[in-house]
């Protein structure tokens, strides 16, 4: 990852206050888009719209939760969509082979996801390889294995009970029941991040690995388990995906990792680690889903949507950075004798930590 220090090192402000600021912005954004959309675009106020939005964002929200934690610790997992695909194809293959008990299929998929995540974890924590490169490799490997498992075929003859059951609405509403699963996971992750020492430890790991180690956190073990969780959740998303679309194919979820990363970044999580949280990310997931669907409904062409997504992503990081640089300059002007900004104070720990790895490249 680029080592340019930015205001990402949150020394002047406690981490949580910066969090709240950006989270609020995103949540306000969602509300604004929803309100303006309902007023101006025909169909946004309709419950069916929200049902479709929910169905679309469920896999992204699922995967974004552990991804948030991983990015907070300064790592990244780009293999999630391939885990989703492999889990979908394995489910399809097993079903084809005669395994028709749904709990068994789900259990096998979750276990597979955990194993795939563990593999990532081993490469990253035991062998010390950079997570970007490792997960690019496993992205290709796992997706390739999906093609080996199922080739070009699609397994699509699942029982109606399963497929319609997966997307059935909560009694009395139009929102699918699966959102409760997502909500439950979201609550669990939020509690973990905001209220437990483990959560604080994640931020510490993201800011400075050495400081975290000295504070007694087992960095390697924590990261390992984060990747295992990421793989398991991605596999769960694979099960949802397969049954929602009633089709298991090797290219299921292809490219989804970019949507997840976009949502995580838009949600205020710094790619350097140490900043951001699940609330902002979930809001960002919803924002992107609502925006996409609402603009589609408003007959905005797909090409424009692509440009808007890209622009939003860039704005989501350029914005806070510009604000931080402006703030630094303003602060420096106010106190002429003040020490130079973050850049000079961050290097010593980074340089010390970087010296052996420098040779490692």
């Amino acid at each position, binding site marked *: *990852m*680029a*080592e*340019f*220090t*930015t205001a990402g090192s949150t020394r002047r402000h406690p981490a949580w206050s910066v969090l709240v600021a950006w989270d609020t912005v995103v949540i306000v954004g969602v509300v604004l888009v929803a309100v303006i959309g309902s007023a101006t675009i025909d169909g946004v106020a309709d419950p069916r719209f929200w049902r479709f939005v929910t169905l679309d964002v469920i896999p992204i929200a699922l995967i974004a939760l552990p991804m948030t934690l991983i990015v907070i610790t300064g790592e*990244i997992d780009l293999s999630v969509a391939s885990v989703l695909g492999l889990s979908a194809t394995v489910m399809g293959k097993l079903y084809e082979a005669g395994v028709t008990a749904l709990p068994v299929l789900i259990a096998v998929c979750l276990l597979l996801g955990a194993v795939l995540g563990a593999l990532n974890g081993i*490469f990253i924590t035991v*062998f*010390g*390889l*950079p997570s*970007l*490169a*490792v997960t*690019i*490799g*496993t*992205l*290709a*490997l*796992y*997706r*390739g294995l999906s*093609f*080996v498992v199922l*080739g070009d075929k699609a397994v699509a003859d699942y029982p109606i009970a399963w497929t319609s059951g997966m997307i059935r609405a909560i009694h009395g509403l139009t929102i699918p029941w699966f959102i409760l699963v997502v909500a439950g996971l979201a609550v669990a992750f939020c509690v973990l991040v905001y209220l437990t020492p483990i959560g604080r430890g994640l931020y510490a790991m993201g800011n400075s690995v050495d400081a975290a180690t000295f504070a007694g956190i087992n960095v390697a073990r924590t990261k390992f388990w984060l990747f295992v969780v990421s793989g398991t959740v991605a596999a769960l998303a694979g099960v949802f995906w397969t049954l929602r679309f009633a089709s298991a194919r*090797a290219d299921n979820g292809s*490219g989804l990792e*970019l949507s997840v*990363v976009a949502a995580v*970044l838009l949600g205020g999580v710094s*790619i350097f680690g140490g900043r951001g949280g699940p609330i902002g990310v979930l809001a960002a997931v919803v924002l992107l889903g609502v925006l996409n669907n609402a603009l589609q409904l408003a007959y905005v*062409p*797909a*090409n*424009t949507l*692509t*440009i*808007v*997504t*890209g622009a*939003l*992503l*860039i704005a*989501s*990081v*350029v914005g806070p*950075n510009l604000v931080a640089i402006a703030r630094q300059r303003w602060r420096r002007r106010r106190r002429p004798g003040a020490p130079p900004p973050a*850049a000079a104070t*961050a*290097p010593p720990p980074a*340089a010390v930590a*970087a010296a*052996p*790895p*420098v*040779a*490692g*490249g």
Partner: protein
Amino acid sequence: MSATTAAPATSAVQRLFVVRELGIGLALVLLVVVTTLVNPRFLSAQNVKDLLLGATILAIMAVGQAVVIITRNVDLSVGSVLGLTTFATGTTFLHHPGLPIAAVFVIGVALGALCGAVNGALIASVRVPALVVTLGTLYMFRGFDYTWAASSQINAADMPPAFLRLGSGAVFGVPVLALVAVVVVVAAGAYLRTYASGRELYAVGSNPDAARLSGIPVGRRVFWAFVTSGALAGLAGVLYAARFGTVDANAGLGSELNVVAAAVVGGVAIFGGSGSVYGAVLGAVLLTVIGAALPVLGVSPFWEKAAVGLLILSAIGLDRALAARLAGRLTVRRARG
């Protein structure tokens, strides 16, 4: 590696480079030998020409990517830049058929450089992480490409035959496109090795803060690294149009991961500071040969992606192992004084 390491360490580092690239070269040779044993026609003049042609575009983009990765960044927008410049090439020929081919090359490279400059400016001046910026520009450039192209398609018949001959022609049996790639990689390799600003890229990648403190204009170096990557992707786009003839807005879709894979497999460490463009080109050739060898070996092409993934993982594992050994040797040497 920074230029301040002692002479024995420098030669050790250089030896590391050579070993790493030799490793790829060896893997390549092994693969070719095995495939030729299975089917001798794999090494026929026609097939070799095809392999070289197939690797060229990937190789040129991998050189640009290597330059960026050496500075501890990544450029995910190269696929979209290729699509944009390929379509620009086709459209230019369509609407201005009298334009000399050299002019179209300049236009393509300039457009690519412009895209790279956008990336570089955002990353260097506003200090935004490259992963995010290039992810955003991946979407934006592709969106512009789609909007501009609006589903139209440029066909081989719309382009001057001389241009298309570039795409499939050969000089003494070596495809013209491959020669272009050779020129590019030799130029890039020479620049990185002999010019101070080239060597400084390695310093920037090894330790940006130390580089900045020692007076290297990090922002400027990074900016030009991205301009280079964009320009080379632009060049690749022009050559793509020459090779394929028929282009539409989807050219290059999804190719960025292959380009990064080629660089990583070729020994360019994702954490910056080491690797060479020669390795990146070897990585590109290896990936292409795998794609061509699998059908000949009778292996289902479905294994190709998995094979690429395994290659990437072995490559970075090998890099780490070699680097650890080197670090150990350096530390021992330093301790000995």
